[in-house]
């Protein structure tokens, strides 16, 4: 099939679970709080630098923007798609990475429920190939959807012969 000169990759068709947005927001809030607390300790308790009034305000504004913008952006970007011959994922927010791997080269399918993800009923599925740089991860999937995806991928990958290197 000839690819036309103005060929572009479309986005993958499936989105991750909307609860992932909540998980990312809460993780970002915790990270921001830890960072602010660390800076407060550094200046108030240990006196590493003099605290001006605008420092926490500025930092707070930056972190607040991050907490509000990043989860929504990431939810818009994180997508995935599985066809009969390939797996296609898109991840990131500022720097976006799209990965395509053929079904015939899949070596393992991993299902991971992280500590935080478990609270929200989410899980991630990682598809590895023979290349260390070619692993595809779909994070923030609903747990049941993730399990179904793992089964689907295992069946499809098994049906292709070869040692996948």
């Amino acid at each position, binding site marked *: *099939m000839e*690819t036309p*000169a*103005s*060929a*572009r*990759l*479309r986005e*993958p068709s499936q989105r991750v679970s909307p609860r992932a947005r909540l998980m990312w927001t809460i993780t970002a809030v915790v990270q921001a709080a830890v960072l602010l607390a660390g800076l407060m300790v550094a200046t108030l308790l240990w006196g590493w630098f003099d605290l001006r009034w605008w420092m926490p305000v500025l930092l707070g504004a930056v972190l607040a923007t991050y907490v509000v913008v990043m989860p929504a952006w990431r939810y818009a970007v994180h997508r995935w*798609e599985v*066809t009969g*011959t*390939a797996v*296609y994922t898109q991840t990131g927010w*500022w*720097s*976006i*990475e*799209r*990965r*395509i*791997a*053929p079904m015939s*080269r899949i*070596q393992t399918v991993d299902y991971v429920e992280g500590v935080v993800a478990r609270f929200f009923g989410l899980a991630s599925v990682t598809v*590895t*190939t*023979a*290349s*260390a*740089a*070619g692993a*595809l991860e779909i994070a923030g999937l609903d747990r049941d959807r993730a399990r179904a995806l793992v089964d689907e991928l295992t069946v499809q990958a098994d049906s292709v012969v070869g*040692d996948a*290197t």
Partner: protein
Amino acid sequence: MSDATTSELVHDEQWQRLDPRMLLVHPIRELLRFLPVLLGLFVAGTATGGNEPWQYLGVAIPVGLGLLRYLTTSFRIHAGRIELRRGLLNKHVLSTPLDRVRTIDLTASLIHRVLGLTTVRIGTGTASRSDDDQLDLDGLPLVRARELRRELLQRAQPDLVHAADGEGEAGLPATPPERVVVRLQPGWLVYAPFTTSGLVIAAGILGAGSQLLNLLDLWTKVGTATPDVGASPTWWLLGPVLVVLVVAAVSALAVVGYLATNWDFTLSHTRGDGSWHLRRGLLTTRETSIDDGRVRGVSMGSPLGLRLAGGRQLSAIVTGLDRSQQGSSVLVPPAPAAVVRRVADDVLGTRAPLTVPLVPHGPRARARRFSRALLPAAALSALLVVAVAAFDAPGWFVVAAVAAPLVALCLAQDRWRALGHALVDGWFVVRSGSLSQRHAVLATDGIIGWNFRDTWFQRRVGLTTLVATTAGGRQAYTALDVPEDVAVGLAGAAVPGLVEQFLA
């Protein structure tokens, strides 16, 4: 002891230990590993007025560990599989089908060579990085190890072997002829100081030197002497002489390092079982055998210094060797460019990939090369100027502030010239970089998948970075800053049927 007529691969089910001479090697190695702890123990012992037994217990533990390691490691070749069992507390059984063996590496350190032993490392193409998953037979006699290697490689390509020898004698085919492709030449030593390892040695020396100066409190003397730099004639004499001495010392060390690693470097090819053999090393000798079918391409590296001296280095992209074994995939150490190209053509079997003109990536990619080099340089210059103006830094900072953008300009131009890609005859070719330039040729059937990576800045100008993932070498080969439609077209042409279904 096996005699020459018994095949290594025909053994009964008994687990066999490694060579008994390893009883000498393991304790010594453990002692060396525990040396810092032991020294500490002895120092502490003499300081507190000596509890004699505790110190000797300290020596006995590593020796005991070494003995245990020998006693608890055993292997067997049985039912078409090779199995290795080791561990005292955590028992590890590693098992591999003989047909899955891709590469075989024979490494012999100084102790091993003195005793006539070698370590056999078997690579199966696994992406596992853990040391525990390496199938290492640490301590086989050299003759046995070579025989094992020959037979394992024969299994990988049985049809070719039967066609090559007309003997028909079961179990004992004639040794196929080995064709030497390249051998170390004395003239290559010239290239030793120009590689990045030379720079690492220089950095090490600088670090050690400054430590020494620190120790002898010479920094303060240097500091007080600096204001007189313009005035004092001795500095004008001493300075260049010192620089020349340092450069000479670094070069000598680099040459010694090059010799130690590449002594008797020989690359040869056997047509019979279709494999490449690499042999090199002075103190630690290394013999690697790579099955033909696992060589998926080559990567020609030309760091800036080496390139200016007219040299290149070549390594193979091999599945079955992970990054920690990169040293086993070197095809040619730093050597004249003509030699490297000849060997590359030999390995690839065709001249096309390295001679085809590379497609440039367009004006927007060029603009990005320049902006990415000039912006940090401009920032650095601004900082230096501010330092001189506001904080009374030495005057030569201004010189550096002027020089930085010029250097950046040259760097950007070199990077732009090097950037390009091509797709020819089933080979995917990419080149990029200036300080560490790499020209990679990858077989398209070795490409597993594609990654398209772009930052917000790249998306704004319609560029993307295309990465071809593969099971060998550096695992991923990158075409930087390619226009997106070109990237998609390239991916579709190189691996048909994968990317087309996701087009807009």
